[in-house]
C-alpha cells in the first residue's frame, strides 16, 4: 500500500462521525437505533482504498465507516440521512441502517444480518455477464457468518468463479454472542475450504494489512479466479447498539483492544506527532460540524410524499 495522509484522515472522519452520531443520539436529536464501528475504522478504510471506482459495495448494519470509505462519499448527505432529512442519501427514508450511495455503486447498508450475502452473488454474476472487470465486496459480521445465506452465497460464487470478496468483519461479538461460542473454529476464514476457495485472516486494525489483502483479493477477482473470503479480526469498542449493558464482556478486554486503536497506530506509520494529529482532528471535526449544520438546516420529508418511491 502507498501510505497517505488521506487514509488517516478518512479513519478520523469516520471516528468523528460516529462520536457525533452517538452524541446526537444521547441528546435525543436522532431517533431509531444505530451501530457504531468505533475501533474498526482500519477495516473500512483498508477496504475502501483497495477497491476501484466502479466496484460495488454491499454493506452491513454497522456500515458508517465503509460508506465513508467508499468512493465519492459525502459526509453531509450521510449526516442528513442519519437525521432523517430530505437531503440525505435516501431522502430520510432509510436512516443509519440503510445508507446507500447508489450512484457510486454503494448498494447500501443492510438492517438484516447477512442480508447482503445472497445479493452479492447476483452482483458478481452480473459483472461476469456484463464482462466488466468490476468487483463486488460484501461486508458482514462474525455473527452473519452463521446464517444460511453465507453458505448459499459463497458456494454459488465459488462454483461460478464470481468476482466477489466476502469480507467478514470479525469483531468478536454478535450482540452478546462471542464468536468462540457461536462457532467451533479458530478462524472464520477456514470456512473457505468448504467451498474450495481461498480464505485469508488479516489484522483488521492494521490499515495497510487490510488494504493489501483486499487489493490482492480484488486482483484475483479481476483475473477471473473467483471469490475470496477475507476475515478481518477487529473489535467493537462500543455496545452493540444504544441499549447494550455489555454484561457479556469484561472492561479489561475492551481496554486491551483499545490499546490497539488503529488510528494512532497508522498515524505512527505516517510519522505524525501529537500536534499534527490534533490539527487533523480539528479539521475533521469542523467537517462533521458542517455536516450537522447542513443536516439540521435541511427540510424533513413532506408527509404528503410518503408513498413516493414504493413503485417506479
Amino acid at each position, binding site marked *: 500500500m502507498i501510505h497517505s495522509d488521506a487514509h488517516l484522515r478518512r479513519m478520523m472522519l469516520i471516528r468523528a462521525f460516529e462520536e457525533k452520531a452517538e452524541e446526537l443520539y444521547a441528546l435525543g436529536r436522532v431517533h431509531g437505533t444505530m451501530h457504531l464501528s468505533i475501533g474498526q475504522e482500519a477495516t473500512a478504510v483498508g477496504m475502501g482504498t483497495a477497491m476501484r471506482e466502479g466496484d460495488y459495495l454491499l454493506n452491513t448494519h454497522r456500515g458508517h465507516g465503509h460508506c465513508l470509505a467508499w468512493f465519492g462519499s459525502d459526509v453531509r448527505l450521510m449526516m442528513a440521512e442519519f437525521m432523517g432529512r430530505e437531503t440525505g442519501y*435516501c431522502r430520510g427514508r432509510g436512516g443509519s441502517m440503510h445508507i*446507500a450511495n*447508489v450512484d457510486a455503486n454503494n448498494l*447500501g447498508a443492510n438492517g438484516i444480518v447477512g442480508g447482503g450475502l*445472497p*445479493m452479492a452473488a447476483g452482483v458478481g*454474476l452480473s459483472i461476469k455477464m456484463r464482462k466488466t472487470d468490476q468487483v463486488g465486496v460484501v461486508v458482514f459480521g462474525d455473527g452473519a457468518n452463521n446464517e444460511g445465506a453465507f453458505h448459499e452465497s459463497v*458456494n454459488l460464487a465459488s462454483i461460478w468463479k464470481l468476482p466477489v470478496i466476502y469480507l467478514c468483519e470479525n469483531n468478536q461479538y454478535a450482540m452478546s454472542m462471542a464468536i468462540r461460542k457461536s462457532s467451533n473454529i479458530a478462524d472464520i476464514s477456514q470456512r473457505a475450504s468448504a467451498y474450495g476457495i481461498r480464505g485469508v485472516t488479516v489484522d483488521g486494525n492494521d490499515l495497510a494489512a487490510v488494504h493489501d489483502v483486499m487489493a490482492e483479493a480484488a486482483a484475483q477477482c479481476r483475473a477471473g479466479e473467483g471469490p475470496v473470503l477475507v476475515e478481518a479480526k477487529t473489535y467493537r469498542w462500543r455496545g452493540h447498539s444504544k441499549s447494550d449493558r455489555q454484561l457479556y464482556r469484561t472492561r479489561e478486554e475492551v481496554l486491551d483492544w483499545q490499546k490497539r486503536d488503529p488510528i494512532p497506530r497508522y498515524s505512527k506509520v505516517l510519522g505524525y506527532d501529537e500536534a499534527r494529529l490534533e490539527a487533523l482532528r480539528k479539521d475533521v471535526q469542523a467537517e462533521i460540524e458542517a455536516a450537522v449544520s447542513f443536516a439540521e438546516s435541511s427540510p424533513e420529508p413532506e408527509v404528503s410524499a410518503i408513498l413516493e*418511491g414504493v413503485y*417506479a
Partner: protein
Amino acid sequence: MRELTYAEALREGLRQAMRADARVFVMGEDVGIYGGAFGVTNGMLEEFGAERIIDTPISEAVIAGACIGAALTGMRPVGEIQFMDFVTLSMEQLVLQAAKIRYMFGGKASVPMVLRMPGGSGTGAAAQHSESLENWFVNVPGLKVVMPSTPYDAKGLLLAAIDDPNPVIFIEHKLLYKTKGPVPEEAYRVPLSQSVVVRPGAHVTVVATSIMVPRALEAATTLAGEGIELEVVDPRTLAPLDAGPIIASARKTGKVLVVHEAPERGGFGGEVVACIAASEAFDFLEAPIRRLAGLDVPIPYNRNLERAAVPQVEDIVREARRLARGEY
C-alpha cells in the same frame, strides 16, 4: 389464431424477451438441460446457452438474492422457483430486500426482476408441493403479484412483468401448463394491474384467480343452462389490484362470489371482499359477499381428499346458484 399451451406461451414470451434484450436471463434449479420441472424452459438452453439459461444449486435464498443483485446492477433476471412452496426459503430476500430497496434508498435504486413459480394443488404431490401463497406477497408493499389464468395472459403478462422496473412475483399454476388457448405470435404485452371481465353476466359476479378462472367459466356455462348468468372477473394482477372492474361488476349484479384456491383464512379473498364492502358498490349489494376458497387444511395426498380441499367446478356452481336464488 394459433393455439399454444400455457407452458409454450410462457416459453415463447421468455424467448422473445431474451432475443430482444441481452440483459434478460433465466436462472433456477434444473432450468437448463432438464427444461424446468414443468418443462417451461424446455429447449431454451440450446438457443441461449448456459450463460443465459443458468442452472443453480438448490439454494432458494441465493436464487432470489442473485436476481436482486443482478437487477440492481443492470441486468433483467427472470428467476424460477421450482415449486412455489420453496419460496418460503427466499422470503427474506424478496420481502426485506427486493420489495424495499427502492423505497429505503429514497427512490434511487431499482430492482427490475421477475420471479416465476408454480403454485397450486392437483398433482398428488401433497402438502409440501401444493402451496398457494399469493396473499403473502400481496401484503408486501413494493412487490407486484401476477397470476395468469390463460396462455394468452401468461405470455402477455410475462413480457409486461419483464419490462416492469419493479420486482414481480409471477405465479403460474401447475394444472394450467397443459391448457391450450389462442396466443398471438408477436411479443405483445398484457398491462399489469388491469382486471378484466372475462365473461359478462347479469346475476352474480364471480371474482376468480388463476385456475379458478377456467373453473368459474365452466360453472358459468352450466348455470347459463339454468338461466343464471355469471359475470366472471379475473384480476390477473393481484397487487397492485385494479379494483375498479370488480367494484363495477359488484354494483351491477349486487351479488358476489370470490373464488380462489388458497386457504380461505387470511387469503386474497378477504382483500377482494374488503375492497367491495368499503366501496360505492356496498349500497347495491343484495346478498352477503361470499368466499369460496381452499379449506383451511394442508393439501392431503389422497386423491379424493386433495380434490375436496380446493374449489371444484361443482362447488362454484352450487355457491353461485345459491347466491343467485337468494339463498344467503
